[in-house]
Each structure stands twice: as C-alpha cells, then as structure tokens.
C-alpha cells in the first residue's frame, strides 16, 4: 500500500517536472499547435495573390484595409497587381468574409485592433498586434539579414506560416536559429 502511494506520487511528480523541459522539440513531439489565423482556403486568392509574395491570410487585416487594397491594385506597394473583374470580385468577397474583425480566433481578431491607417496603404506589419509580437526582434536579424530582408516575408522565419500557425515555438530565423524568447 505504501509502495503504491509512493509510486503514484512519483508518477505524478515526474510528469509535472517534464513540463519544465526545453520547449522546442519536446513540445513538438506531443502538442500540435492550432492555427492562429485561418489558413488560406481559396484557390484564386492563393494563386493570384500568392504568385509574387506570401499569401497573407485574410485574418491578418481588418475588412476595411482589404477594401483599400482591392481598390488600389494598380498601385500595389510599388507593383501593378490588377486582376480581371471576375477574379477581383471573388477575391474581395473572400477577404471580407474572412477578415480579422469577423474572426472567431482571438489572434486574428487582435489584428483588427487599432486605429484607421488613413490614406496610407495598410500594412500587416503596421498593425498594433504585429508590432507587439515583434517588439523584441532586432532589426538586423530581419532587415539586415539577406535571407529574410523584410518583416513582410513571414514564411521565411515562421516555418508554419502556410498553416496559419505563427506561435514563437515554430520560429527559426535563417542564420540565427530558433528564436528563444
């Protein structure tokens, strides 16, 4: 009886001790992250908008910002990204349906917090939530890093960005390794 109690207590103790382990690989082994924002599930958006840059998920900007972008495709951050009417309508609808302000996921909703950008073209990297999350990253690790170049290239460091998973445990910065907070 005494042995049983010691054994059971020992088991509980060791399992709770294991929570203290290094997060990376141990965590990946038995805890699968859920998407922070809904992954892209529209073919047209993926192929048209993911052709030149990472296909940013709709949940990364509020609806009014997506409207602004779709209204100004001819001057799309220095490029001409005009689409034919049918595609433009489909994409606009998809983006508005899945925008940050209507999302059920708290991190996507967090992207809708903050004031209007006014006339300036909206940028995900200017959202308050984005800046909060990237506050501790030194610029040289991104802008001064030839393999990354810009904070806009999410998928370079966020290895699971395609799946809409952005949590810090999956961040590997080229030339610097895993991001350890």
């Amino acid at each position, binding site marked *: 009886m005494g042995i049983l109690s010691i054994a059971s207590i020992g088991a509980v103790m060791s399992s709770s001790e294991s929570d203290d382990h290094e997060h990376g690989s141990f965590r990946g082994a038995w805890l699968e992250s859920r998407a922070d924002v809904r992954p892209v599930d529209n073919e047209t958006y993926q192929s048209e908008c993911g*052709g030149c*840059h990472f296909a940013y998920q709709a949940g990364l900007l509020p609806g009014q910002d997506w409207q602004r972008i779709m209204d100004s495709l001819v001057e799309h*951050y*220095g*490029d*001409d990204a*005009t689409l034919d009417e049918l595609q433009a309508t489909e994409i606009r609808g998809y983006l508005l349906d899945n925008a940050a302000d209507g999302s059920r996921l708290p991190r996507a909703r967090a992207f809708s917090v903050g004031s209007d950008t006014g006339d300036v073209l909206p940028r995900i990297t200017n959202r308050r939530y984005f800046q909060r999350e990237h506050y501790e990253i030194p610029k040289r690790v991104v802008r001064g890093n030839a393999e990354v170049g810009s904070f*806009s290239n999410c998928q370079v460091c966020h290895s699971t960005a395609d799946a809409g998973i952005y949590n810090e445990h999956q961040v590997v910065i080229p030339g610097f390794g895993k991001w350890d907070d």
Partner: protein
Amino acid sequence: MKTNITFAIAGVVATSMAYGSAVNLIEGYRNAGAGPFSPDAGGSAWTQQHQSSSGVDTRSCSSCHGTDITQPGRHVRTGKPIEPMAVSMSPARLSDPKKVEKWFRRNCRWTLGRECTPQEKGDFIQFMTSQ
C-alpha cells in the same frame, strides 16, 4: 522499361503542347499585324533597363527573372522564387493564354511603364521558347 517509355512519351507530349501553345500565341500576334519575330530581339529586350516611374530605380525583365532564363528567378522585392521562364525548363509556362496576357500586362506596365506591343510580346515568346 515500360515506365521509362511512359515517361518519355509523356515528356514528348508535354513539350509539344508547350511549343504548340507558343505557336498559337505567335499566330495571335501576327494577326494583330506584328512580325516577323526574333528570339534575339526578345533576348536583348529582356535585359534592357528602364527608368521606374518614380525615377528612383531602373527595371528590366531580368530584375526578377534573371539573365539566364533556364535558372529560377526571384521576385525583386519579396524574394519569392519564380520558376524558370525557359519553356524547356517549364513546359507549362505558356499553356494558358489568359495567364500569359495577364502577366504581360502587369509586368510590362511595371517594367516599361506601358503595355507591351504585339511585336514585343512575340519576340519575348520566341526568346522563351528558344532557351
């Protein structure tokens, strides 16, 4: 042995389809009054530098697609990899005429500041099929 033959046939079919669609595009441009087309003209236009509208930088097709189009390119701003433009490397390159026109429209406007003429487009197609 059978697998090898299947692959060889598939390769021939894909390649002929690729060049077949190139021929269709060329026909279209010829009907618009352009021609004759030359891969060399396309090749030299490929690397020609143009001033951007802001005047800050110069641009050419090679800015993103590189000078050796059998190699993959990189988007000059985002760094996103682009499959080689040479039809020999990317047989499906010219298979969708709508797509071809879309990219011509966007990229010519970005590079040259205007749409490309049918002559210029024809020359580019010849260049891409010659590599």
